[in-house]
């Protein structure tokens, strides 16, 4: 057994998140590689949500369809997961929660969750009993669990801690019985050092990257799935000297952030589709005043409100062309946690250096997925801060040889610092002079040249002698990678783009080396495929597009590959 997939399923508010969190942490602390992700409805209680936890002897970092064990927390769970249940799936849960006619699906192993939890002190302990059952199957040492529970519930007092520990123990007891069944006799090996690794998700990777990039200001308006970044920064605001301000709307958010940059802050903006739509005028402003800007855009399926808590990659071309007038920009779409971290850090560096907006495109799947990794590589920031002390003669929009006007801030030096949304001269004053206009347009657009030099190249995964090339971007990286490895095909490679604009120069070479090219995207119109065509003229032979609101699974890609 190389890896195992456990899915917890129940209503919103039934505690899935706690189970997911405790289970993934404890298993990692016990030395297992883990991956955890979730999908949930746009509501607070009720409905049907699920979380998947994969445990592997090797590293696991992507979503699989297959379910080895389902823990049913509420009625409706089996129906919700129907398509993913196979004969080998073990279903663990209360008898009353699994309806008679669902029993033909998988193997049902009833346990008296409710009864046991009532004994301990109430139904709320159901979740911890489940955790107990599961960690029991992995034979995790009591000490690890107890320590974790103590820290997890540290603010809730000893009663809560004791009860939860009892619940877990009860669960473990049951698991001893269960493990006698072959199907539940798990043999995944622990791996040395995994217990010491870090376990984070996409949200944390981006937020930590922002901190590492010197982010000290974030103005935002709540919107799924982007809010988590602001929550993370708020929770560490005092420690890191970050101003976190929730605004009245997204328009205020971006204008406040631009005000902050102007006065010397390093501001992050975090939003999602409709929220970003409201920021488009502000984006255009950032270009005109040559302000740096870093925008995290958590994509979700549209149009309009669409599927607010689901995943999609539908905003690429929108991001690329958003804003009236013409101006350069950079768009990142990290595919791994390390990338999310370092690209967000880099976003601040590039934005600051070239005074342009830099986007980080993610989605719900990416933001909500955890896995363990050894560490995060942090770039030491030394000379990366571009603010200059200004002299009396300072002109904010001076046309310099280097092509970039030094950026000053008001109150630092003897000069004056101006920002003007109208076309302006070098001093930043409004002008309608047609020649200055042309010079200023050129000055702004010529930054593309620098940005092209700073491109983070695509990553080629798999055989260099490929005949078939799969192309993807953003959050699908790990899924496609695993599927490719799984498929054991040395005629296929996968080219992953973590930077989607501007594109690296050598793309055509990669594409033309292939006899067949396939672009894989979570949208219906193949936006990245169109972007490649726009930039290189190259057209993909085939597309694999998914836009039902869910991420690709390893199996989907594997199956697709098998037909190539």
């Amino acid at each position: 057994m190389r890896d195992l997939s456990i899915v917890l399923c129940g209503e919103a508010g039934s505690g899935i998140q706690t189970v997911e969190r405790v289970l993934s942490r404890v298993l990692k602390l016990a030395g297992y590689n883990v991956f955890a992700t979730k999908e949930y409805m746009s509501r607070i209680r009720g409905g049907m949500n699920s979380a998947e936890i994969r445990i592997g002897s090797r590293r696991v970092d992507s979503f699989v369809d297959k379910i080895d064990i389902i823990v049913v927390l509420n009625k409706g769970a089996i129906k919700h997961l129907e398509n993913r249940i196979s004969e080998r799936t073990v279903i663990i849960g209360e008898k009353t929660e699994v309806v008679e006619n669902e029993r033909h699906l998988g193997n049902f192993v009833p346990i008296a969750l409710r009864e046991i939890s009532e004994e301990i002190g109430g139904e709320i302990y159901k979740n911890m009993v489940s955790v107990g059952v599961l960690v029991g199957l992995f034979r995790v040492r009591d000490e690890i669990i107890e320590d974790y529970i103590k820290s997890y519930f540290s603010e809730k007092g000893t009663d809560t801690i004791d009860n939860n520990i009892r619940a877990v123990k009860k669960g473990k007891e049951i698991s001893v019985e269960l493990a006698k069944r072959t199907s539940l006799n798990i043999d995944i090996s622990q791996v040395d050092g995994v217990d010491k690794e870090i376990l984070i998700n996409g949200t944390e990777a981006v937020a930590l990257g922002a901190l590492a990039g010197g982010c000290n200001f974030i103005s935002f308006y709540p919107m799924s799935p982007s809010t988590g970044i602001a929550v993370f920064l708020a929770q560490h605001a005092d420690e890191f000297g970050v101003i976190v301000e929730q605004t009245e709307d997204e328009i205020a958010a971006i204008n406040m952030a631009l005000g902050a940059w102007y006065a010397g802050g390093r501001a992050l903006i975090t939003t999602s589709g409709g929220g970003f739509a409201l920021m488009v005028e502000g984006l255009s402003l950032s270009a005109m005043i040559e302000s740096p800007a870093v925008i995290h855009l958590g994509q979700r399926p549209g149009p309009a409100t669409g599927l607010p808590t689901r995943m999609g990659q539908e905003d690429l071309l929108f991001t690329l062309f958003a804003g009236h007038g013409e101006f350069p920009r950079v768009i990142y779409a990290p595919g791994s946690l390390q990338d999310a971290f370092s690209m967000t850090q880099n976003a601040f560096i590039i934005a600051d250096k070239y005074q342009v907006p830099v986007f980080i495109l993610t989605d719900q799947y990416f933001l909500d997925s955890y896995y363990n990794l050894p560490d995060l590589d942090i770039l030491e920031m030394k000379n990366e801060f571009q603010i200059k002390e200004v002299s009396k003669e300072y002109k904010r929009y001076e046309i310099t040889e280097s092509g970039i006007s030094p950026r000053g801030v008001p109150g630092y030096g003897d000069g004056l610092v101006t920002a003007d949304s109208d076309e302006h001269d070098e001093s930043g004053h409004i002008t309608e002079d047609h020649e200055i206009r042309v010079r200023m347009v050129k000055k702004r657009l010529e930054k593309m040249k620098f940005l092209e030099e700073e491109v983070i190249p695509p990553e080629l995964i798999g055989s260099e002698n490929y005949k078939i090339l799969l192309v993807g971007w953003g959050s699908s990286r790990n899924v496609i990678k695993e599927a490719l490895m799984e498929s054991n095909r040395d005629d296929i490679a996968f080219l992953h783009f973590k930077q989607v604009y501007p594109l690296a120069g050598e793309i055509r070479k990669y594409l033309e080396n292939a006899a067949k090219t396939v672009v894989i995207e979570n949208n219906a119109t193949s936006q990245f495929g169109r972007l490649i065509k726009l930039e290189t003229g190259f057209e993909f032979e085939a597309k694999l597009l998914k836009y039902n609101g869910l991420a690709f699974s390893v199996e989907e890609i594997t199956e697709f590959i098998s037909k190539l």
Partner: protein
Amino acid sequence: MSENRFDMGEIDIAWCPGCGNFSILKAVKQVLLELDIDQKKLVMVSGIGQAAKIPQYIKTNYFNGLHGRALPAATGIKAANPHLIVIAESGDGCMYGEGGNHFIHTIRRNPDITHIVHNNMVYGLTKGQASPTSPTGFETPVQNNGVFIKPFNPIAVAIALDASFVARTYIAHKELTESILKNAIEHKGYALIDIFQPCVSFNKINTYDWYKANTYLLGEDYDPTDRKAAFAKALENEKYPLGILYQKTGGVIFEKQYYKHNEKPLFQRRPNLSSIKDLVESKRIN
């Protein structure tokens, strides 16, 4: 006043001859000088419109941003560096129309900024459409049957939101205007000054004469600390009262909340990579 370090020298000012904006510009520069404000520490923030061009005519730092969006930009500036003196200044359309949502929420935030509105009761730059403060019956090329919706009452709304300083003046009253501006800039917290300003090109109703006839000065005995009385005053529209209508002290100031643990303005801060590493470390255990 012949020499003022805020003067720009010989520049082309894009306002119409006779416009009230000139007097506002003069008053603002005069007050800045009298308050001995260091222009390097001053930031004028505006939106788009005729009034919004004012920062271009003052020798200082400025952020001439988007139509309607001066207040959030000003708030961001003040938050990023509380040592700066921040004045947000623009027209009635900009501040109460396009920027209406920021108006109400900036009052709630109460940053220490001065908010000056050139209220000419018309959209000047776009050639004479009604603004939120245009009087009922005002005819324009678009509102050609006359405005029929109620004018926006910024004073009443500001008082309703417990703004910490609410004033109105008419630009022909030079001294009153200067004294209010001074008070407003010195006031700690958000301060609104709505300035009646005749638009000689597009507003043939609210002219110099009209303002003269339809305003009066609040008496010496007027107590601006009584919110309910201030509200009653704010509703007067036979003749509009001029002066500081409402003022309170001691409220929580927005940006101060963010400088409790760290006094450095943001441009002086650097990421603490070792703390970030510690935070990453903590992800090994939970």
